């Protein structure tokens, strides 16, 4: 393979499934959707299911108070478990050689609601409100300052593909030699803007999202952060393939034939130098909207066939928008890290089982399902963003040293 190694050397994450790796893994393979909650506060005159993080989050350090917002607290929660590895990387390579590339679709806009409410009442913004907590670029700068990194630090925001795209850019920054290590992933937080925005679009499901079902009627929103330490070392879990495309179709609906999705998946396979049959598991974008599932099933059937175990993990954590590509890559990372005896435990597809006969008959993974592989395991994750931005990643791990 011509590409340089790209190791996803350490992973921290937080989502509705929790913060502790062992607990998250158990809930993930059990298909535990009980972590979603019914929220009656965020959208006027209706209750919606959300994947809210219920654990308490770390406080923003006083020296970084200008970055204080829930979105950055989620990032800090994801950073905590990998703090030792990240600190070691900054010490080993030097601050200038460590970059930060992160995705978000919300940044601190949830906390800006409070500032705008304060302004409505008093005519002025709350004194503690700082633009660093709101602007998109603030997320990467916050993490860079929190870890003492002084390499490139910027934030990608391509809606639902942001987190996947951040990992793609981290890999290139390391491959080019601009950085020796990059902290990459995403953070996205539940807020009034996105819950009311998607409600206005008619995209939020009445019950919990129900992808691939004939009864599906939209998505369930969530929040999450997943941060990886990305290095150029071989071994461990590698980011092997990236494929991406634009839709040139519509701001809030994908091309019904799934051409953009197909281009992204084929591009990732080509980039990784893999054949379709070498993929052992696919984490679907699987939002549960009628349009996504129709076009994605058609594209998956064309590229990967109908036998590959697939699942959407959005019924477990919600659609975490800008963080979806990162948290779903994190779930793929856990699937690879927990491989045993030539088999992967794959997250089940949790739904009502009432298959939509109009959709291509791709294989939706059942509870307890295991996917076999020989010597090296490869998994794929799809992220198809609002605005027509698609990104597919392939992760892999080898059993031979």
């Amino acid at each position, binding site marked *: 393979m011509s590409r340089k190694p790209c190791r996803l050397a350490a992973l921290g994450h937080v989502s509705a499934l929790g913060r502790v790796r062992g607990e998250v893994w158990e809930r993930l393979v059990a298909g535990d959707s009980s972590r979603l909650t019914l929220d009656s506060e965020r959208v006027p005159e209706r209750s919606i299911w959300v994947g809210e993080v219920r654990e308490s989050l770390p406080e923003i350090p006083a020296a970084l108070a200008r970055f204080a917002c829930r979105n950055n607290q989620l990032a800090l929660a994801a950073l905590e478990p990998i703090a030792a590895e990240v600190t070691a990387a900054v010490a080993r390579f030097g601050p200038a050689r460590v970059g930060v590339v992160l995705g978000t679709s919300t940044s601190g806009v949830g906390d800006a609601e409070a500032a705008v409410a304060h302004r409505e009442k008093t005519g002025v913004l709350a004194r503690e409100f700082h633009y660093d907590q709101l602007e998109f670029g603030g997320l990467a700068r916050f993490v860079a300052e929190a870890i003492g990194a002084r390499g490139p630090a*910027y934030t990608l925001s391509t809606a639902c593909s942001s987190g996947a795209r951040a990992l793609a850019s981290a890999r290139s920054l390391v491959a080019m030699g601009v950085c020796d290590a990059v902290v990459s992933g995403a953070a996205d937080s539940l807020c009034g803007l996105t819950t009311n925005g998607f409600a206005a679009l008619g995209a939020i499901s009445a019950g919990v999202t129900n992808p691939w079902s004939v009864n599906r009627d939209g998505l369930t929103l969530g929040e999450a952060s997943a941060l990886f330490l990305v290095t150029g070392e071989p071994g461990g879990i590698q980011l092997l393939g990236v494929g991406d495309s634009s839709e040139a179709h519509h701001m809030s609906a994908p091309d019904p034939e799934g051409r953009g999705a197909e281009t992204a998946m084929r591009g990732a396979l080509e980039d990784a130098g893999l054949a379709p049959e070498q993929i052992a598991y696919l984490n679907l974008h699987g939002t549960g909207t009628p349009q996504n599932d129709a076009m994605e099933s058609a594209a998956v059937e064309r590229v990967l066939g109908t036998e590959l175990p697939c699942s959407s993990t959005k019924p477990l954590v919600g659609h975490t928008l800008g963080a979806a590509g990162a948290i779903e890559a994190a779930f793929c990372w856990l699937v690879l890290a927990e491989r045993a005896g030539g088999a992967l435990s794959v997250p089940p597809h949790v739904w009502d089982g009432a298959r939509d006969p109009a959709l291509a008959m791709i294989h939706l993974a059942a509870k307890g399902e295991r996917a076999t592989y020989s010597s090296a395991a490869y998994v794929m994750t799809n992220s198809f963003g609002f605005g027509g931005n698609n990104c597919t990643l392939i992760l892999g791990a080898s059993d031979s040293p």
Partner: protein
Amino acid sequence: MKAALLRWSAWAPGIESLAAWEAWAKAPAALPAAGQPDAKFLPAMLRRRCTPLTRTMLTAAFGAAEPAELARLRTVFASRHGSINESIGLLENVVRREKLSPATFSHTVHNAQAGLFSIAAGNRAASSSLAGQEDSWTAAWLEALCFLERDPREPVLVVIGDVPLAETFAPLVTEAAVPYSFAAQVGAAGTGPGVELELGLLDSPRPAPPWPPALEFLRWWLSADESLEQTNRANLVRWRKC
């Protein structure tokens, strides 16, 4: 990191042609604080849905490439503030518990300009949208280098732009608040006039010129100067012609 700067285009109120930019670069002065392009190249239906930022950024984008390239090249869209002005209106709706306009919401995502460009140009290639605070231009350049690392055969169309922040948040930010856009095709080293980017550590803050960093880069590019130093919160950014 070396790359090539191929064709470019820029827009600010009253400075729209290459000749006008060359004249500005010879005698740079503060730029007008208001104005937006007519963006007549866009179909009327699409143009009506464009925010001032979208019109501004797409004007530079469409000026920097031929139609066939517009439909084919990978793109990087960079903006410090993106659609925050439109988001403020939506936040006020949220706070007042009013219904949001779905069309407005669709056009406030940070990749709205990239999405509308893709539709207007019929472009299905890979695209990224980013923000890097005061230094979004260097971030955009790095992101283009990332695309070139993956495939150096075709240049990347980099588009940066902003419009002044609305008064809700404007007092929180110190910057040259002017509407502008700049687009450039960035190719692999050796495919055109060379630019080398080097990131160093910033020792102490330096004064910034009274126009956006991307236009300072353009001013330098049009000047006889060999190199340019810019800063962000952590880095000394050194550009060199090569």
